């Protein structure tokens, strides 16, 4: 349907990231055009910042922290604009919050570089060592783990804790790094790409309280419905999945070591149980809008039953699939007898946490351009994915690490921070990493959304084969850990 019109845009992005050189010909630069420009000479009155970051979520505040701590950017004026209020967490609350993220080792490295990881481990975080992903329609399963279960695969951390930890680091930064809370941006004014004598060459940001600020570089970290991206008119490939995610905190029937992340693909969507502690786990159940609303209306007992049966029941399996699955397994074990792992069942759920369950709609989006003259997009503003792979925020942290490194180098070479050369490098590098990941996640979602026999057989075989190839699994884990 509309996917075919979107395909050229995706290919455009793919094409650019594969062939882009450091210095693009004039044509492409002009194409990135301008929306409007400002022709006033009162630049001396408005303050000029080196970098303004719009959006103080996990990714935006990590960017502010990362830039502020870089030695080559010492003394540069950095401002973070957040529309909400400051998230302070003097004491970690007893109840767990429903929104959690899986932090990959790569993201943990970035966070420890800015000093926030120490705060997070002191507050609350749960490492897990294995992940089991299996199908509801067949016996196929795949498990990911590091050798001998010694290393952690990734960490489950509540989003509030991540933001609070980074906010604490931001408070400790020198005065050249500022944060303005409760500042909503109402207008952006873009500069002309070619410096004309009378016009102001900086990006102008107008806040709701009438204040105007100017920036040599604007970083848009304002989420999937990014105002920066919309105002720039950047074409975005996006569509809504007909799915919503239901999140809740689960109380387990009995305490267990709980260092495994579970995800089962039902025909209606994947259900995931992520460990939070020995007795609690987080639920992320992506399903159709209709079912999600129903789930929210169930009483606690029925809701718990629904969760347990989603993980445990085998009603979706047909005989054909079972036989075929057994055949595949037999054939594969003849080739690689030692590989493969036994199926384990997740812990059963007894109750849910006091905070109410919430649902939010799911979609996918990818901006065809991450950058414009003096503007860069990071995090969900540039790319939005399905939560089934736990990659959303990790892609954002990857953007932060890459952009910080490039800006640091540019500053050490005396370059204007908003110059397009290093912004193009950022776009190329990140698109090359993000696009394959996003395509894979989308394909997985589509493949597992059906219980038609051919698709089931295909994915059964694929999953079993992948499970038997340790090198392939290692590659997947390495790519997802970046």
């Amino acid at each position: 349907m509309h996917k075919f019109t979107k395909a050229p845009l995706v290919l455009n992005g793919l094409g650019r990231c594969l062939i882009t050189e450091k210095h693009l010909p004039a044509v492409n630069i002009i194409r990135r055009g301008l929306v409007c420009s400002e022709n006033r000479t009162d630049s001396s009155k408005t303050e000029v910042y080196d970098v303004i970051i719009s959006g103080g979520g996990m990714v935006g505040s990590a960017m502010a922290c990362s830039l502020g701590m870089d030695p080559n950017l010492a003394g540069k004026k950095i401002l973070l604009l957040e529309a909400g209020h400051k998230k302070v967490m003097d004491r970690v609350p007893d109840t767990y919050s429903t929104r959690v993220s899986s932090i990959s080792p790569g993201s943990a490295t970035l966070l420890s570089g800015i000093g926030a990881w120490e705060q997070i481990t002191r507050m609350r975080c749960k490492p897990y060592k294995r992940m089991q992903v299996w199908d509801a329609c067949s016996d196929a399963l795949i498990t990911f783990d590091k050798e001998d279960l010694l290393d952690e695969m990734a960490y489950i951390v509540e989003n509030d804790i991540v933001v609070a930890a980074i906010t604490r680091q931001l408070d400790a930064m020198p005065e050249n790094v500022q944060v303005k809370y409760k500042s909503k941006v109402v207008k952006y004014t873009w500069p002309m790409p070619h410096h004309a004598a009378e016009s102001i060459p900086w990006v102008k940001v107008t806040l709701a309280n009438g204040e105007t600020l100017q920036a040599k570089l604007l970083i848009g970290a304002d989420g999937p419905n990014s105002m920066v991206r919309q105002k720039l008119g950047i074409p975005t490939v996006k569509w809504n999945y007909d799915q919503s995610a239901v999140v809740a905190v689960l109380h387990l029937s009995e305490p267990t070591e709980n260092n495994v992340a579970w995800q089962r693909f039902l025909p209606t969507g994947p259900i995931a149980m992520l460990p939070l502690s020995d007795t609690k786990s987080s639920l992320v159940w992506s399903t159709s809008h209709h079912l999600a609303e129903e789930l929210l209306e169930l009483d606690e007992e029925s809701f718990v039953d629904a969760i347990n049966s989603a993980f445990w029941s085998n009603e979706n399996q047909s005989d054909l699939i079972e036989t075929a699955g057994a055949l595949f397994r037999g054939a594969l074990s003849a080739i690689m007898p030692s590989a493969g792992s036994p199926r384990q069942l997740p812990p059963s759920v007894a109750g849910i946490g006091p905070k109410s369950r919430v649902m939010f709609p799911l979609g996918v989006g990818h901006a065809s351009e991450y950058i414009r003259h003096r503007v860069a997009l990071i995090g969900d503003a540039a790319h939005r994915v399905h939560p089934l792979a736990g990659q959303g925020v990790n892609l954002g942290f990857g953007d932060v690490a890459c952009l910080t490194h490039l800006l640091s180098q540019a500053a050490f070479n005396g370059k204007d921070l908003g110059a397009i050369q290093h912004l193009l490098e950022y776009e190329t590098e990140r698109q090359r990493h993000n696009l394959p990941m996003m395509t894979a996640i989308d394909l997985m979602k589509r493949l597992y959304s059906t219980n038609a026999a051919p698709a089931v057989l295909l994915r059964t075989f694929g999953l079993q084969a992948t499970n038997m190839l340790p090198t392939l699994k290692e590659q997947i884990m390495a790519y997802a850990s970046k």
Partner: protein
Amino acid sequence: MYSNKLGRLMFGLKGLKVTSACGAFERAAARSGFSWAAVCKQRTLWQQRSACARMHQTGVRSAVHTTVDHGEVKRFQLLANKWWDEEGEFAALHAMNDLRVPFVRDNLLNAQRERHPGQPLAGLRILDVGCGGGLLSEPLGRLGATVLGIDPVEDSVRIAQLHAAHDPDLRDRVSYQACTLEELSGEGEPQQQPEQGVTQFDAVVASEVVEHLADLDTFAICCSHVLKPGGSLFITTLNKTNLSYALAIVVAEQLLHIVPRGTHDWEKFISPVELERLLESNGFLVQSVQGMLYNPISGAWSWTNNTEINYALHAVKQDDEAQDGSSPSGGHNEATNS
């Protein structure tokens, strides 16, 4: 194509009568009612004189006491508006910043003791000779140095000032003056007390400048005057070889139009050996010479061992005592005394 643009520029900027819009720059004498012919004749005269002076290598200072070549000044005046168009006529110079800024920065850092994070060149005074639109002055200013950019072309200096005016960081650190190097160093005469009326710089940068000058001896002497003892001189220029003629003149100017036609005159190119000899006879010690290579496809520069086309040179001014005494490089320094 380029000539049309130039014709429009000339008409707009100078209000001159444009008699014919076509023709290569070398035939400029026929283009307008202005006395181009006289200018060209003068330029050829100066060329011959300075060529003579260099060829004889007697070290006798040439009869010309100015580094400025008026033909070159006119040419750059017409290109003044193009300085900051990163994809325009000066694209290759913008790209060269990737090499020359680290070259200047790292060599200056090597001599420094203190480290200033974020402002590696803080506390240093740098003179950018032939700054043009400020392409090199601005990055050096951003790195913390106090930069004075000079250029005989007033329009370029005006453009440079306008461009730096919007940036609060640069306003304090980078300043420009429309003058020549001789005017700045005080008539080019040697002075016993260098502090008198001449500001002392930690470094002088003359990037892509010496190939446009009329007299290199004067240039070297003036540089020596404005530099502190132990100060650095950075020069990037083109070598005078057959390869540089083929690539820098034929290919770059006429075929690929990387550089506006007529920008370079092969006769003015100087080889690193000659430049080194010239500098050492004026009290400098050459520390390093490094070749640079431009890739027209990617539009990027890279370092290379081959100095046959473009090269960068770093020299350090010797202390005054060593300069007045017998030069170790052998003779020809009568020019130091008037």
